[in-house]
């Protein structure tokens, strides 16, 4: 860790630079690519007894993408955390393997080729971001542009037809993108920027609420715009029935507010409001209400003679995997139906890789998140810290919301498993998130040792 002895070392200590670890990153990338290729071959061997014809092309493609990204990091972010890129490549590669594997069950509806194209676009944008964005603090200037763009992106899908009950897609020329996915980065930038600029005012001014000192409310002038933006975005999402993203934005908002102000009271208020809001929406809005009912009684549709619903099928898939899984290509998670490749892709991982594989995947995400938080801890500028925490939290919350949903821990809300699930916008967005994390971790790790971190 870079920020050792925080606040204790005198400034006079000579600057010793941390190791760059680019070789480690390259070695890990090789491992990540080989693992993905192995998985790809394994599917073919398990299904047909032969290595799939596209194995070489798949390996070469993933290898070239990884190398491209690595070179960009090597040139423009040499101090970046060496774990971030290999984890992203491994998750993306594994996602492609799982989608390819599910494509075998639906020969008329192949998703892997498109996903490979989107992954390429994602890596291209990652490379571009690493090359072009020299300092993350530049983003702070575009805070208001970000929030305006984010709101526009979120509002646009309202004018497009709903797909499977949610108005979150826009379609043109055979393509469909989910603008809300991009909005979450922009909102994270805005929140980080606004909170960094106003954190003193937020933390130390304003009236106390009666005798509860911890519930000291900031002045409306400072807090107002923030709450307005947040309410607006959540309102739009509710209109679009995008539950997962509303939950994500709420969590992001509360975490960043807490980190910026250090006031536990906000969390209490936030949770209280959330509980109230969740109860109201859950009991009044029919779409959400049915999701809650499914969560409480996943087998009700079986008892009613209608056969298992998606959640029940998902639970069956996880159970079938057990500890060690059925092996890639040998499960039956396609029984889940149309969302097997997107929202429910984790069920395939759970069935075919077992609890062992699932834990490995969770730990990969956890490492990604932890590395983001670590960068946040090491940075000096408040904006960078909040941005790192915000981006890492986006990943953490996404994983929790969707993984908790498909395993029956919380009510199911539509959301993409980062890198794993089919979905172009999601893959691209997550590559940009990793690019930004690379950027902030580069800044964090290139700071001379001894420079104080508060």
């Amino acid at each position, binding site marked *: 860790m870079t920020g050792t002895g925080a606040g204790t070392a005198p400034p006079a200590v000579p600057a010793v630079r941390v190791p760059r670890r680019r070789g480690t990153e390259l070695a890990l990338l090789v491992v990540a690519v080989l693992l993905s290729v192995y998985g790809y071959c394994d599917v073919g061997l398990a299904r047909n007894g032969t290595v799939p014809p596209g194995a070489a092309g798949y390996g070469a493609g993933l290898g070239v993408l990884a190398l491209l990204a690595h070179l960009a990091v090597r040139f423009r972010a040499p101090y970046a955390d060496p774990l971030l890129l290999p984890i992203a490549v491994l998750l993306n590669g594994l996602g492609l393997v799982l989608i390819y594997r599910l494509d075998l069950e639906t020969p008329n509806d192949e998703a892997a080729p498109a996903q490979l194209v989107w992954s390429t676009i994602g890596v291209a944008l990652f490379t571009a971001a690493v090359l072009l964005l020299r300092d993350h603090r530049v983003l702070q200037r575009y805070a208001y542009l970000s929030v305006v763009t984010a709101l526009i992106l979120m509002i646009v899908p309202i004018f497009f037809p709903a797909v499977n009950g949610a108005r979150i897609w826009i379609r043109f020329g055979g393509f469909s993108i989910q603008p809300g996915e991009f909005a979450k980065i922009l909102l994270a930038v805005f929140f980080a920027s606004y909170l960094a600029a106003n954190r003193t005012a937020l933390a130390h001014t304003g009236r106390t609420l009666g005798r509860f000192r911890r519930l000291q409310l900031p002045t409306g002038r400072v807090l107002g715009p923030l709450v307005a933006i947040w309410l607006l975005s959540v309102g739009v999402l509710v209109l679009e029935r995008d539950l997962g993203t509303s939950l994500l934005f709420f969590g992001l908002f509360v975490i960043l507010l*807490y980190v910026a102000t250090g006031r536990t009271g906000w969390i209490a208020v936030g949770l209280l409001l959330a509980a109230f809001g969740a109860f109201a929406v859950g009991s009044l809005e029919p779409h959400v209400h049915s999701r809650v009912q499914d969560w409480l009684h996943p087998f009700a549709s079986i008892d009613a003679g209608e056969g*298992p619903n998606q959640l029940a099928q998902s639970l069956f898939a*996880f*159970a079938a995997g057990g500890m060690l899984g059925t092996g890639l290509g040998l499960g039956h998670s396609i029984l889940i139906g149309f969302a097997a490749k997107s929202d429910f892709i984790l069920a395939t991982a759970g069935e075919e890789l077992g*609890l062992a594989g699932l834990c490995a995947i969770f730990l990969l995400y956890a490492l990604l998140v932890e590395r983001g938080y670590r960068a946040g801890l090491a940075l000096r500028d408040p904006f960078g810290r909040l941005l790192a925490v915000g981006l890492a*939290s986006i990943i953490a919350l996404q994983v929790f919301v969707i993984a*908790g949903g498909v395993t029956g821990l919380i009510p199911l809300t539509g959301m993409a498993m980062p890198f794993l699930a089919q979905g172009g916008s999601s893959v691209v967005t997550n590559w940009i998130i990793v690019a930004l994390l690379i950027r902030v971790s580069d800044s964090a790790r290139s700071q001379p040792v001894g420079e104080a971190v508060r």
Partner: protein
Amino acid sequence: MTRCIRHAAAFCALLLLALLVNATRVQVVQSDSLDHNPANRRQAIVRFGQPRGDIVVDGRAVTGSKDTGEQLRYERTYKNGPLYAPVTGFASQVYGTSFLEEAEDDILSGTDPMLAPLPLWNDVTRAQNPGGKVVTTIRAPVQQAAYAGLGGKRGAVVAVEPATGKILALVSAPSYDPERLSGTSRPVADAWTELNGRPSRPMLNRAIRQTYPPGSTFKVVTAAAALDAGVVTDPDEPTKSPSPYTLPGTSTQLTNEVDGCTNASLRTAFVWSCNTVFAKLGVDTGLSAMVDTARNFGFNDRGLRIPSPVAASTFDTSLDKAQLALSSIGQYDTRATPLQMAMVSAAVANGGSVKSPHLVERTTTADGDVVDTTGTRTLRQAMNPGTAVRLREMMTEVVEKGTGANAAIPGATVGGKTGTAQHGVDNAGTPYAWFVSWAQGADDPEPSVAVAVVVEDASADRGDISGGGSAAPIAKAVMEAALSGGGPR
């Protein structure tokens, strides 16, 4: 701010922990109950994911498997389905299994742990064994003779090897093609509805699952009981039997179809099937001796399996004398499966010893390694060997000069007993024609086949229905097939 970031990180760690705990709950703790949820199609997919093992008759498979490429991939096919349906039963994706398909399902579907190369091997590797084979005791020519003999008339034929209990033929008519129930398509559901709705009940296995009043064929049991109990010591000595016989305690008079039954000897009464003599004989022998003998032949046994469960044949254990008199000639509420009457005939042929009837000779792995064999097992001693010898003589006379002449086979010793069973309210139903018999080839040291035939042909003229007329020719054809090389190996 650092402290808060650490708190937020801890919060994320808590979320991760919740996910891990929950995944363990689903994948480990609840996995068993979820795997066995009836709505979970995985077990069916695995079950039908490989070809089912074959059922073998005379060295040739009478079943097959068809790859449909669908989710439930392999469907069962049957060669000569209607002929072997009472043996094989059906194996349906939708309606489950029956008879051998059901009884030997673990072997055929490959789930039997005995098929694995090593104990617990499959639990470790998650491998599934190819379905094993079930080799039956059925002899194809005997089965075909029985099926052709019935010619679609309602009824059943069972042929067993007396010395071993091997079932050589098991036929029920009318039959059906079990292949119609394979698969998941619409015609399968239609076939199921149609077969269940037909009044002739083609899916009923009359040979082992239907009981009939055995009529006069039950006189074999009564004779055995009377001889064993010492009520009759010399079969040629005249009995004190009036004709007609007034049932004890009633004014009902029992008559005979033939003349000359008054005070007839046991032999004469047996050969000409005198109701009056046997009704009185049953009463003289007494309820407990009759019940004991019937039980020793296999009546009132609810646990018989071949390995499919066999419907229990019954001889009532609490009867007044009039009821006992009627029961002793196979009426009142005495009921028997065709298999049970074949066992009765086989017991006579085999010196009084009832061998456990069985349909499966051995089960093997797909490669032919033997998993299990069904050996010969004695169920009970039905009567003294001396009694068996006397009954054998009497049964032979039935064929040589009595009611069973239609079953005579030149060059072979054949014993038989006819039966015509009244049933229905006031005996209004069409009578069932019975014939039980055994045959011994000229060069054979022992009788090599015992047969029971029942014909319930509702369309026949009532006057034509008699064991000797309808059933004996079928038994003859079956015995001929068994004696001429189609018999025991």
